[in-house]
């Protein structure tokens, strides 16, 4: 029944679409007739599709025979009964006319293709990242909780399991709260072990996120208790690749690190939270959770109770944080807790740059529209006689306006269509160049919202361009009506075109200043010294544990020795916390420990600690500023020693050479006897989180003396490119132990580049858009000057005939171009003041009003404007005065 109604509605819609083809005098009868025929056809064996085609063919036949039919039926022939055929005739005439002006047509179409294509491509990104809903049930009710340090305002990457457990227990505004920690397991393949990355999630995780399994189920409450049969949930991708989308996968087993896990379900295809992973496991409370209460390394997610707001949650978290700091002062000194909505947490860091780039591309579109409008105005001026003739023959204002709109709509449609086609073809490229880790970037597609946007900007642009041209045309008609001289009208249109070009230059300069500021920021950033040389260095991360789950130092050293034997390797060392680790490819294993300089528990400082071997400083290229590095003599039972970096020495000792200084490390639980270490050397500072991160006080310890973890990263310095070392180094590890999985292997320079990837992407794209805008503006100015020279050919001819020098004519033309450009530059500088407010947060080491950038961009635009005006000026000086005066071409 509903189906029949829908079909009926669709058929009526079809008739409504066909009806404009039918002359107005016959239209209403035609619609009544076809409504009745289609109704009658429902009770006959005639197929609906036949009636659909029949209606269209009949409408076409009726249009062709319109006057005769109207006559036969004794109907009057209304004067506007041929509206559609009038438009159709104009379309055909316009197509023919455009074919005779291939230059104009090509420039118009290419400009629109560039404008619409760039805008659509950027909207595709905005749509995939910011508009498309996140794959969670009632995402607005989900919050992410992080620890903060109220003393310096820093926000941690997460929270500790013990603190989150207490938060969940004490909170009334949160219904479910859970933590997730990333893990790596080795999955044994035929001849080697593969690393499996996944997330261990605590009880309440799936209730907090509201995610249900697409196959099977999520974890039962008892499965979070530990000590039972191990179970696992698979990601959709892993299920498809490893289990060939087996619908009976539930109940099958997965062998990881020698332990068998039973698959209980498969997660939805679009689910990857907290980030990508292959397997999700239940996280039972760990025996050491309490010991690491102060270490905020786990991701926490929670669902707000019905009626609670983010403000309520934050107020409650403030109270809970104060309680936790009071109850656990050793681990929670200065503890704060911060709730952020999941949407803001996931998208906050990309929203501003993406919207900025989208704004930039809309400015490019505006420049493109201004450009084609200018072109069309110039063309309208050349078709003045045609308009005058049409007007004299009785063409109304509406018909002249329609002519302008038909032309702009036709050209914009073709140009916009090409732009959308280019976007569609370039989606894969766009997906590749989007910075890694951009949420939703993998789903970039030209879907319905993107198509609607493309349609909107294409027809919006054609309306704007056509509207402005129509304004010019209708003024002309009014002038003709008043008997005004053509020069008045030409002046009006010239002024309009002048305004358009000035606007183009202003917009282009605004973008150029923005791009210049971002370029200078990147330049300043890359000038920062990292403290080590990432070139020709490879980072290889492994997790090596004994069967008893203890760090396996023997195996780690054996791997190091095997890597050292690989041809092309100069030196190799290892660390628990490699600089530049991004938690995406290479896990950041660094931790913060409380230490005291005077053995007093009351004067403790939290510092970043890395545990290393004796080869690491040389392998990374750290400079030893004082004392020595570790040696093979700093053995397990030897004197406990430490290295500190320059930032540490300056901050806590006020000098560089602090060898012999004593550091007291407190256990992670905060109580017990401290371990005392002697500082044996000072090394250079390292920017551990890429170029932007300031050096922080750091302490290095020999891993052999602490044996804190089996997760280490080898730094391999090679005499050959790191890419050539990738396989041999992994083979050396597998030759030592076939069961050892290599977690990550990446060149240090790529790892460091990852930290500036988003900035480079934003800068490159804005620079590209600015380049487009400046180029289009220059073309616009060139077109205006060329047109102006053509229009003033007679004046130029007279000047030359009267002995005017070429230089004078060049000065006249270029001077006008420069005057317009100066006006545009002034407006553009005002625009860049607005832009700099938006850009402020994205700049590094550069003032938003950086005089050098403003001056360079303005100078560049003026120079280009001068060059754009010079071409037509030179052409004006070459024209034969006698020819121009006689009007011969």
């Amino acid at each position, binding site marked *: 029944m509903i189906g029949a109604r829908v079909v009926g509605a669709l058929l009526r819609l079809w008739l409504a679409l066909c009806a404009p083809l039918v002359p107005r005098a016959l239209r209403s*009868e035609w619609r*009544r*007739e076809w*409504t*009745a*025929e289609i*109704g*009658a*056809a429902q009770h*006959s*064996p*005639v197929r609906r599709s*036949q*009636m659909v*085609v*029949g*209606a*269209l*063919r*009949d409408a*076409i*036949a*009726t249009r062709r*025979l319109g*006057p*005769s*039919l109207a*006559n*036969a*039926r004794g109907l009057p022939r209304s004067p506007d009964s041929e509206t559609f055929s009038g438009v159709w005739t104009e379309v055909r005439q316009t197509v023919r006319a455009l074919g005779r002006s291939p230059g104009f047509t090509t420039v118009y179409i290419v400009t629109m293709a560039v404008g619409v294509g760039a805008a659509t491509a950027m909207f595709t990104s905005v749509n995939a990242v910011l508009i498309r809903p996140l794959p969670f049930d009632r995402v607005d009710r989900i919050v992410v909780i992080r620890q903060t340090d109220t003393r310096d305002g820093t926000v941690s990457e997460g929270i500790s399991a013990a603190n989150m457990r207490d938060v969940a227990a004490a909170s009334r505004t949160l219904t479910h709260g859970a933590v997730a920690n990333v893990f790596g397991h080795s999955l044994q393949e035929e001849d080697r072990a593969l690393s499996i990355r996944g997330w261990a999630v605590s009880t309440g995780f799936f209730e907090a996120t509201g995610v249900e399994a697409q196959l099977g189920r999520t974890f039962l409450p008892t499965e979070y208790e530990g000590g039972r049969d191990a179970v696992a949930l698979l990601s959709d991708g892993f299920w498809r690749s490893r289990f060939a989308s087996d619908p009976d996968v539930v109940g099958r087993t997965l062998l990881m690190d020698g332990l068998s896990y039973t698959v209980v379900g498969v997660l939805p295809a679009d689910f990857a939270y907290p980030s990508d992973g292959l397997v999700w496991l239940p996280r039972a409370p760990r025996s050491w959770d309490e010991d690491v209460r102060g270490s905020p390394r786990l991701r926490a997610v929670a669902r707000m109770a019905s009626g609670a707001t983010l403000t309520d949650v934050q107020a409650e978290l403030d109270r809970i944080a104060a309680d936790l700091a009071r109850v656990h002062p050793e681990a929670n000194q200065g503890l704060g807790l911060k709730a952020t909505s999941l949407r803001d947490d996931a998208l906050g860091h990309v929203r501003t740059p993406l919207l900025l780039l989208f704004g930039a591309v809309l400015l490019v579109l505006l420049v493109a529209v201004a450009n084609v409008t200018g072109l069309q105005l110039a063309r309208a001026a050349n078709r003045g006689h045609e308009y005058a003739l049409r007007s004299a023959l009785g063409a109304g204002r509406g018909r002249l306006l329609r002519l302008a709109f038909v032309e702009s709509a036709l050209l914009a449609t073709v140009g916009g269509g090409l732009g959308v086609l280019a976007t569609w073809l370039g989606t894969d490229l766009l997906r590749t160049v989007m910075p890694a880790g951009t949420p939703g970037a993998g789903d970039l597609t030209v879907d319905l919202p993107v198509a609607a946007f493309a349609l909107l900007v294409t027809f919006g642009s054609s309306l704007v361009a056509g509207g402005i041209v129509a304004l010019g045309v209708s003024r002309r008609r009014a002038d003709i009506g008043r008997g005004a001289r053509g020069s008045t009208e030409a002046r009006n249109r010239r002024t309009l075109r002048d305004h358009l070009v000035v606007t183009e230059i202003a917009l282009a300069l605004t973008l150029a200043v923005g791009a210049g500021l971002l370029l200078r920021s990147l330049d300043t950033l890359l000038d920062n010294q990292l403290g080590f040389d990432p070139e020709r260095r490879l980072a290889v991360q492994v997790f090596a544990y004994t069967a008893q789950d203890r760090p396996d130092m023997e195996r780690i050293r054996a791997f190091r020795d095997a890597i050292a034997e690989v041809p092309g390797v100069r030196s190799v060392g290892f660390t628990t916390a490699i600089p530049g680790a991004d938690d995406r490819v290479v896990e950041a294993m660094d931790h913060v420990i409380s230490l005291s300089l005077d053995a007093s528990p009351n004067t403790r400082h939290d510092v970043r600690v890395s545990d290393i071997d004796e080869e690491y400083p040389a392998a990374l290229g750290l400079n030893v500023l004082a004392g020595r590095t570790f040696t093979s003599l700093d053995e397990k039972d030897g004197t406990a020693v430490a290295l500190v970096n320059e930032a540490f020495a300056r901050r806590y000792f006020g000098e560089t050479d602090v060898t012999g200084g004593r550091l007291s490390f407190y256990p992670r639980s905060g109580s017990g006897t401290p371990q005392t270490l002697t500082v044996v050397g000072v090394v250079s500072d390292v920017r551990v989180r890429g170029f932007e991160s300031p050096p922080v006080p750091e302490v290095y310890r020999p891993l052999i003396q602490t044996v804190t973890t089996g997760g280490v990263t080898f730094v391999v310095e090679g005499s050959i490119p790191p890419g050539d070392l990738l396989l041999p180094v992994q083979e050396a590890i597998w030759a030592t132990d076939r069961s050892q999985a290599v977690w990550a292997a990446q060149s240090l320079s790529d790892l460091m580049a990852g930290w500036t990837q988003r900035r480079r992407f934003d800068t490159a794209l804005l620079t590209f858009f600015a380049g487009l805008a400046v180029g289009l503006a220059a073309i616009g100015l060139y077109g205006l000057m060329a047109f102006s020279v053509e229009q003033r050919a007679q004046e130029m001819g007279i000047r030359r005939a009267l002995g005017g020098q070429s230089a004078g004519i060049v000065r006249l033309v270029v001077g006008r171009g420069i005057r317009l450009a100066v006006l545009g530059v002034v407006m553009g500088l005002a625009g860049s003041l607005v832009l700099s407010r938006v850009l402020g947060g994205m700049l590094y080491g550069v003032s938003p009003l950086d005089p050098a950038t403003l001056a360079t961009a303005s100078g560049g635009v003026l120079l280009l404007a001068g060059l754009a005006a010079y071409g037509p000026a030179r052409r004006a000086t070459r024209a034969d005065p006698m020819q121009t005066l006689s009007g011969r071409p």
Partner: protein
Amino acid sequence: MGGEATDIRTVTYNELLVLQALGTGSEYGLEIMSLTGLSAGTVYPILRRFEATGFVSSRMEDAAVAHRNGRPARRIHALSGDGRAVLQPAREAFLARHRAMGLVPSPGSGTP
């Protein structure tokens, strides 16, 4: 008479079928379709052409009659005097043309 004049000597097979159907009293487009087996996209344009030429007259059915029959008013077609006058010559012209090509048997030649 405006529009397209149909030359009765070159009338097509489909046009002849529509003329013939009208000649037998069919009034509605759908009726002609089911009688001739032609599609809607063929029948309706032919009806318009004949109407423009004057061979067919048409009118919308009386709304009250249609209402009584529980359906919307439909267009009724009928052969005009001109149309009746051309039906036989058109049929003969068509047969003669096809006979010349050997597509239909000559009278008295028996079954081919």
